[in-house]
């Protein structure tokens, strides 16, 4: 118990003292996560919309697969990305291993299925509402995707936030591909894992609280900016 209080104290102290290292790894956490989130959204949201729109034969299988891929164990993703980017791997020449880029790649793989699944689920209702109209208006598949994504943007927020949450708190994969190198690829979660390993629970908890605080801030900011809960149905 006392550790938890000490954790709070450590968090407060880290923030008050404006610790430069903390600042750096926090920014890196944010940068990696937001980059990954952006890329994943660009891939996953149209994909989720397409799965709502298209009724091809393997559709059900693809959906089940996406849902399963939500359970991709991060360590395995990390490992596969590692093997791909490793010097003896096929993309070794790109020299991406142990860089933030590698971490972004792993994150994208991890959160894309999650975002696509939630998008798919969120847009199903909207599509059943719009179905007749959009077919009647003779829209192209591209126009349909755009319309669904635009008119459903508020409901897609949860998808993006779930992706953000999963990415910002993730440690298994980015530990493997990033290597938790000080000043290069250390982010909040890997720092927490490091402190936990050292048995320095107060510091680990302190960093954890900074991380949670960061997530809360980002979420509140987004909610406030988009005004989701103010504006009723839209």
């Amino acid at each position: 118990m006392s550790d938890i209080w000490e954790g709070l104290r450590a968090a407060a102290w880290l923030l008050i003292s404006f610790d430069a290292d903390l600042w750096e790894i926090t920014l890196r956490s944010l940068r990696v996560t937001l980059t990954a989130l952006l890329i994943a959204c660009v891939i996953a949201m149209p994909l989720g919309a397409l799965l709502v729109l298209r009724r091809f034969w393997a559709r059900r299988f693809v959906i089940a697969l996406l849902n399963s891929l939500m359970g991709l164990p991060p360590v395995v993703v990390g490992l596969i990305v590692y093997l791909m980017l490793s010097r003896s791997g096929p993309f070794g020449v790109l020299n991406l291993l142990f860089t933030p880029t590698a971490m972004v790649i792993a994150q994208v793989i991890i959160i894309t299925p999650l975002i696509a699944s939630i998008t798919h689920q969120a847009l199903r209702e909207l599509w059943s509402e719009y179905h007749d109209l959009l077919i009647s208006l003779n829209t192209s598949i591209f126009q349909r995707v755009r319309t669904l994504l635009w008119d459903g943007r508020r409901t897609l927020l949860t998808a993006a936030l779930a992706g953000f949450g999963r990415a910002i708190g993730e440690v298994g994969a980015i530990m493997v591909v990033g290597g938790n190198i000080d000043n290069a690829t250390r982010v909040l979660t890997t720092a927490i894992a490091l402190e936990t390993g050292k048995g320095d629970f107060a510091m680990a908890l302190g960093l954890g609280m900074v991380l949670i605080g960061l997530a809360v801030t980002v979420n509140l900011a987004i909610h406030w900016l988009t005004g989701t809960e103010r504006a009723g149905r839209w």
Partner: protein
Amino acid sequence: DDMKLAVTTSFHNSGLSDILLPALTEDTGIEVQLLVVGTGQALRLGEAGDVDAILVHSRAAEEAFVEAGYSTARREIMYNDFILVGPLADPAQAGQATSIRDALWAISGGTAPFVSRGDDSGTHKRELNLWDTAGMNPVNADWYRATGSGMGAALNTAAGMGAYILTDRASWLNFGNKDGLMVIFEGDEALFNQYAYLKVSPELHDHVQAMTAARLEAWLVSDRAAELIDGYEIDGQKLFTFNAVR
């Protein structure tokens, strides 16, 4: 100059790297990026050419690494020692033992659990080796808990369970969650723990920073390094002993 060095958790957790690396940069301008991983993973990173050098403590594995041509030579740098840590009450009375062998025998009575790293790390291999020399095979005993985790995590587990555990002194001294644990047994020669430095051979991977790795090796065996290593203390205890052959 940048180079990547894979080290074991126990080395990093000792805090010595925080002393050595700034001095290194100051002297040579080399910026070392540390990858803190398990011994097995460190060796794999070396084999794949993803790091330029490794610093580990698992003699047999290191020799196999050199044998397979991944490195040209193994350079011993320093040593510290393993210690036996356990609950304050010492229910097995292992503290009264005169050798590690006797201590293990006492523990094998099963009055309290024993936590093993169980992850094929240098520490784990040494632990198995100690049981072996003591003539026991406890792996299937119910008081023997193979956790399969890093040194810190295993220590946390031992603290949570009130169990005995074999650890290296550096990790122990730097460990923050000592609640309910203390050093039960130390000082046996069988607990000697040698660290060695291996440059990854540029024969297999032409992109490795062989020059920088060599300069690092030269620095690691220098007087400056020797001084820093021998002078590193926590709570008044010396952690490492420099023993490189120059």
